[in-house]
């Protein structure tokens, strides 16, 4: 058994979305709460997909190791249970917008909501299809505190996401989703994650627009030029982390 870590050591695990977190901290848009130490561990998208649960720890494929070590900066080639008090998955391929869009479209053809049991089953089936979610569940099962901040909604204003052939064109009903609709789904996601031992932090409602999009003001630098609907600004990361910090504190007190 690995020795338990100091109670306030944090590790943010993720794909390229963690870049905006690092910038938010660097620019002073938010700050890690006093008494906490923080490490990053992860790698950009394609290489992130090579990270798997091997021999009881998250490990990258050899080809991705160098990049992981660059991001981490502390020579940590794997993350195992007990190395950190708390592991925070950020982005990490859990693209909830995909579920939200398809669910809202599906629901638009119905007269009532499905039962809670049915919806929880569907959400869980969706979540566990993401490897990082499964790894988070493994860490939680081993005793780590795990938070999960899923990939943010696509950014509005970069390109027409409802145009023929575009990402959400098959799901027009999703653009009409209300805050109440989203809250209901977030509640299910949070509940399902809690059953798997994790705390999922929903995207702050004040960052959302047009049903399933992130407000244009949170687009990353050069988003339009690069046609980048995925990455967000440091301000966005800071906003979401402001939802995390109190939860972190609450759990630390409870621990």
């Amino acid at each position, binding site marked *: 058994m690995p020795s338990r870590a100091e109670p306030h050591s944090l590790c943010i695990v993720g794909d390229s979305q963690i870049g905006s977190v690092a910038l938010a901290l660097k620019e002073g848009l938010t700050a890690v709460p006093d008494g906490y130490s923080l490490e990053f561990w992860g790698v950009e998208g394609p290489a992130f997909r090579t990270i798997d649960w091997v021999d009881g720890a998250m490990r990258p494929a050899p080809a991705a190791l160098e990049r992981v070590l660059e991001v981490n900066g502390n020579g940590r080639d794997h993350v195992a249970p007990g190395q950190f008090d708390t592991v925070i998955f950020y982005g990490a391929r859990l693209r909830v917008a995909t579920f939200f869009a398809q669910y809202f479209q599906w629901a638009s053809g119905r007269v009532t909501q499905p039962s809670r*049991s049915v919806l929880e089953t569907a959400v869980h089936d969706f979540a566990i299809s993401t490897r990082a979610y499964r790894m988070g569940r493994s860490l939680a099962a081993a005793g780590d505190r795990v938070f999960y901040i899923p990939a943010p909604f696509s950014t509005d204003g970069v390109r027409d996401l409802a145009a023929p052939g575009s990402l959400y064109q098959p799901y027009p009903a999703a653009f009409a989703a209300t805050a109440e609709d989203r809250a209901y789904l977030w509640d299910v996601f949070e509940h399902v994650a809690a059953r798997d031992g994790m705390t999922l932090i929903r995207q702050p409602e004040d960052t959302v627009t047009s049903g399933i999009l992130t407000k244009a003001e949170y687009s990353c630098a050069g988003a339009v030029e690069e046609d980048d609907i995925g990455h967000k600004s440091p301000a966005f990361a800071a906003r979401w982390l402001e939802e995390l910090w109190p939860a972190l504190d609450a759990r630390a007190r409870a621990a």
Partner: protein
Amino acid sequence: MTHPYDDLGPEAFWKTAVAEPGAFGLSGLWSPKFPIRPRHKIVTAGSCFAQHIGRALAERGYGWIDCEPAPPFMQTEHARNHGYGVFSFRTGNIYTPAMLLQWLELAYDMRADTGEVWVKDGRFHDPLRPAIEPDGFATEDELWDARRETYAALRRAVETADVFVFTLGLTERWRNADTGAEYALCPGTVAGTFDPDKHIFINANTRQTQAALMDVIRLFRAKRPKLRVLLTVSPVPLTATASGKHVLTATHYSKSVLRAVAGMVSDRYGFVDYFPSYEIITHPVFRGMFFAPNMRSVVPEGVATVMKHFFADQIAAFPELRELRVMPEAAQSAEMAEEDVRCEEVLLDAFAR
């Protein structure tokens, strides 16, 4: 012509139609009245065996329609456990014409909901489909919401389908003497509480079965004048009988009534046909080879043989269908695991001594 048998084809004589070709040489068992094309919208409902037909049609690219699909991303197994993707709507098994009639009348507001709900371990079960939510509904409201959703799906199915495939399964049924509600399963088996003063057993005869089926067909045509109906009879024996008879003889009574009624109704209407899947599985010429060792479950090879006859006879009657086929190898049906077929009736096994 010296007598009517002189000009009959080989299919009319046992020797040439059955004895000589043998089980795997049989052909022309069905002379379909109408073509079923890949573009047709096909709805399936009925007892366990109807699930096989729907899946086999869908696998071959036919237009089986799912009017009440599962939420996105729900794994197929989980969806089926919750009654999605099994039939064209989430009714669960509909074993009798009376039960189908009840569903349709409820969907079309021709009959009032009784308000009856079964409670088990703090969860709520729908008496018309007690196993549709494996753990029951969390609230009564959820149960009635789900019911309304299925009513809407049923209406969509009837009003958009080209062909409604209904597999008749049982004659034995349970009814609430006070409300007239027909149950899918005997109260007290999966959920609910059996009350001998209230819950009455009916073993429908041909007259009662035919009357219910005719009412169903009249309702179909009132809502969808062009709808065609394909009847089949489930070859799956009863799990249990409440008739007081031996389950083997009770099975034969039940299947005989259903088979007779299916024949009577299909002979009466040009738009109603009967497909002999029951005979293909159960006839002695097949020597029981399509049954699993329990002599009840139908093995995948049986389903594959049924569907092989289905498509072969369709093409024999309507040769143009040969060009329209999108059918991959029939072996696909053999991959269908029997345990994948959701048969609520099997739950009764839990109560068998």
